[in-house]
């Protein structure tokens, strides 16, 4: 048998998967088979590379060539040129937008330069459906070390010393949580992995589970050893079929290798994992709600204390951590607490994975050291704002977070700084907005989400958020008064102070932070009945500029409601009564003759 000369890594992440990466993979396999190259070239489906903007991505090893936006029709050329003739297919390489140069090695791309990959270390490197590839990259070594060399106390000490804090949003010190769970005496304890990623616009946990499921299983077993639990449960969204599938495969393989189940590695330690499905409820990301959902009940939160560490699943002590938190654990054990604590800031150690999305050039999944600034993330890694528009704000922490603005661009990102700036770390969604986004409409968008997702148990959240939403609706329709702005602020504060769980306590954050940062924009809506971003339909009109209009009839033909009239070669007119403000005319006009008033 010949030696494998080339490995072709095809991205199997959700974004690339949606752009036919599966068919691309099959095509490569067929082409390789047809040419009899099976012994020299191996095709591997990996997890997410992170650079979703340029997907589907195919990476060639060992020379690290990074092909972007690969289409089915490109497969043959890649094989012929790259593998058979040894020449790179230049047109598929990443093009540096500033210099126009082609970059073939991902290490030299701005997108990757500032990233440090710990939680995502294996995503895009290994085949997540093959345990041996995980083991080859030091997989399950940490579990072995812990079981044979370290006591649970010593392991917890490492976790505490590393400074790792919960990556689900709360930022509670992980080691401390483990210690508390360990201290509670009980005949049965549970280890839970929270994979109910509900923040719209975030896909960190999903990518870890799809790209490196074993790291989570390994960490859960370590956690079980430390806290004294022999049963693990992964609570995962049913909307993530690919992640579920890969997790199932990983569990099966780990059992076959004796890394899950009875008497792991011959040490007498028992631990196994089960999957529980979420059914679409944002509030289930809250740990008490999650536990109720796992028990087959409505996912309503309960008052803490008692904390799950004391009384959780079925009333037993339960340690709940999020996917990304777990993904960090094996590395910390292998490389040591000091190594990890060197990365990051004083009180936030290590890295954080963000799903960078919205009006940004390089949408994708990034992992950066704590303490990096927003400016670096947006302008260096993210490649700046799409279509050279003006940066306006970035929302971190999803619907529970707040908006950061130009003044926060140079603030080092960590748990405490984000809270001081009126936002929060959250699970890692990072949505970039430009000058065309209306901050009042954004606040309304998030409130709508909260209103839909409120479980209804406590009235500040159930009723208060609804009232907030109605006030925002009133303002965006041009019926707001200056008093409404005071009411918004007061009610927001009441909801924050009196809601039962994290969802309610944080739900007014988008309103408060937009009020604080964009008060003038609210005032314009209220006093001048104007939306400067042109988003609030009731406050705008599409007008045809008679000077620019040449009467080409293109707008009239594209108007879905026939609101535009005018003879050929004559200036056209929009009937404001009929106009539904869809903006189709403005998009179509080639002469810049339509503007928003």
């Amino acid at each position, binding site marked *: 048998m010949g030696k494998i000369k080339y490995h072709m890594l095809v991205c199997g992440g959700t*974004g690339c998967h949606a752009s036919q990466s599966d068919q691309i993979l099959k095509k490569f396999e067929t082409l390789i088979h047809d040419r009899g190259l099976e012994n020299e070239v191996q095709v591997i489906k990996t997890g997410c590379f992170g650079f979703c903007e340029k*997907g589907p991505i195919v990476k060639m090893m060992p020379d690290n060539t990074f092909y972007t936006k690969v289409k089915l029709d490109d497969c043959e050329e890649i094989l012929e040129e790259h593998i058979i003739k040894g020449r790179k297919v230049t047109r598929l390489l990443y093009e540096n937008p500033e210099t126009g140069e082609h970059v073939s090695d991902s290490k030299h791309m701005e997108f990757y330069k500032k990233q440090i990959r710990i939680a995502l270390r294996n995503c895009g490197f290994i085949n997540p459906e093959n345990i041996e590839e995980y083991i080859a990259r030091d997989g399950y070594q940490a579990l072995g070390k812990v079981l044979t060399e370290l006591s649970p106390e010593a392991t917890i000490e490492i976790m505490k010393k590393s400074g790792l804090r919960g990556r689900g949003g709360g930022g509670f010190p992980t080691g401390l949580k483990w210690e508390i769970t360990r201290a509670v005496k009980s005949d049965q304890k549970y280890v839970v992995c929270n994979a109910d990623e509900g923040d*719209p616009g975030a*896909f960190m946990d999903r990518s870890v589970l799809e790209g490196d499921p074993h790291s989570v299983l390994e960490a859960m077993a370590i956690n079980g050893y430390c806290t004294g639990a022999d049963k693990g449960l992964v609570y995962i969204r049913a909307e993530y079929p690919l992640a579920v599938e890969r997790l199932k495969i990983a569990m099966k393989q780990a059992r076959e290798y004796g890394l899950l189940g009875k008497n792991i590695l011959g040490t007498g330690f028992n631990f196994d994992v089960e999957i529980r499905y979420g059914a679409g409820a944002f509030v289930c990301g809250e740990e008490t709600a999650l536990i109720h959902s796992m*028990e087959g009940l409505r996912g309503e939160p309960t008052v803490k204390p008692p904390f799950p560490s004391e009384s959780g699943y079925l009333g037993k002590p339960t340690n709940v951590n999020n996917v990304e938190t777990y993904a960090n654990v094996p590395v910390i054990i292998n490389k040591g607490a000091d190594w990890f604590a060197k990365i990051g800031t004083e009180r936030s150690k290590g890295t954080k994975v963000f799903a960078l999305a919205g009006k940004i050039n390089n949408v994708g999944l990034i992992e950066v050291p704590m303490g990096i600034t927003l400016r670096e993330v947006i302008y260096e890694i993210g490649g700046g704002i799409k279509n050279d528009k003006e940066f306006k704000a970035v*929302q971190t922490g*999803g619907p529970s977070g707040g908006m950061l603005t130009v003044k926060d661009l140079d603030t080092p990102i960590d748990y405490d700084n984000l809270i001081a700036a009126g936002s929060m770390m959250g699970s890692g*969604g990072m949505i970039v907005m430009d000058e065309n986004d209306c901050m009042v409409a954004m606040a309304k968008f998030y409130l709508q989400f909260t209103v839909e997702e409120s479980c209804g148990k406590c009235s500040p959240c159930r009723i208060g958020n609804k009232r907030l939403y109605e006030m925002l609706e009133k303002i965006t329709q041009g019926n707001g008064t200056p008093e409404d702005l005071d009411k918004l602020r007061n009610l927001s504060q009441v909801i924050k102070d009196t809601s039962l769980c994290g969802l309610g306590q944080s739900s007014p954050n988008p309103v408060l932070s937009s009020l604080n940062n964009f008060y003038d924009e609210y005032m314009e809506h209220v006093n001048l009945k104007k939306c400067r971003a042109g988003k609030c339909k009731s406050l705008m009109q599409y007008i045809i500029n008679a000077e620019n209009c040449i009467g080409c009839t293109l707008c009239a033909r594209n108007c879905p409601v026939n609101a535009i009239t005018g003879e050929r070669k004559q200036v056209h007119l929009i009937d404001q009564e009929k106009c539904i403000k869809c903006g189709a005319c403005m998009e179509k006009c080639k002469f810049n003759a339509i503007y928003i008033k």
Partner: protein
Amino acid sequence: MAKIKLSEKKLEELKAVCKSFNNEKGELINVLHKAQGIFGYLPAEVQEVISKELNVSVAHVYGIVTFYSFFTMTPKGEHPVSICLGTACYVRGAEKVLEEFKRVLKIQVGETTPDGKFSLSCLRCVGACGLAPVVLVGEKVYGRVSPDGVKDIVAEYNS
């Protein structure tokens, strides 16, 4: 709503599902997932059967079904259309795409076309934010959809 008659075969299948979870009430959500897999949705009649098998009240089952957005009590169309309204898609114009689907299909969110061909729903983030705005028809994902492209997508399934 008029009563519907469940086929014997599917009923047996449903009971077998309940049994596979030992008719335990703690497994209700898992049972509902499987039941929706069998019937495509969860009409009152299905909930009644589950309530009997698991020995919980119908009100309890109904409470769970209506709490979680994944469960639905109305049948979906042959080609369920879902528009992602996650934040990334929203800021990239998903709302306009949704409006266009409503206009072209002449239905509102949560409805099914009279011929049963299409149904329209919204979802929150499929994790393909690089392709925003994203539309799903069944399992197929359409990325970077513009209002202009909506007609073409619908036409694909109308032929």
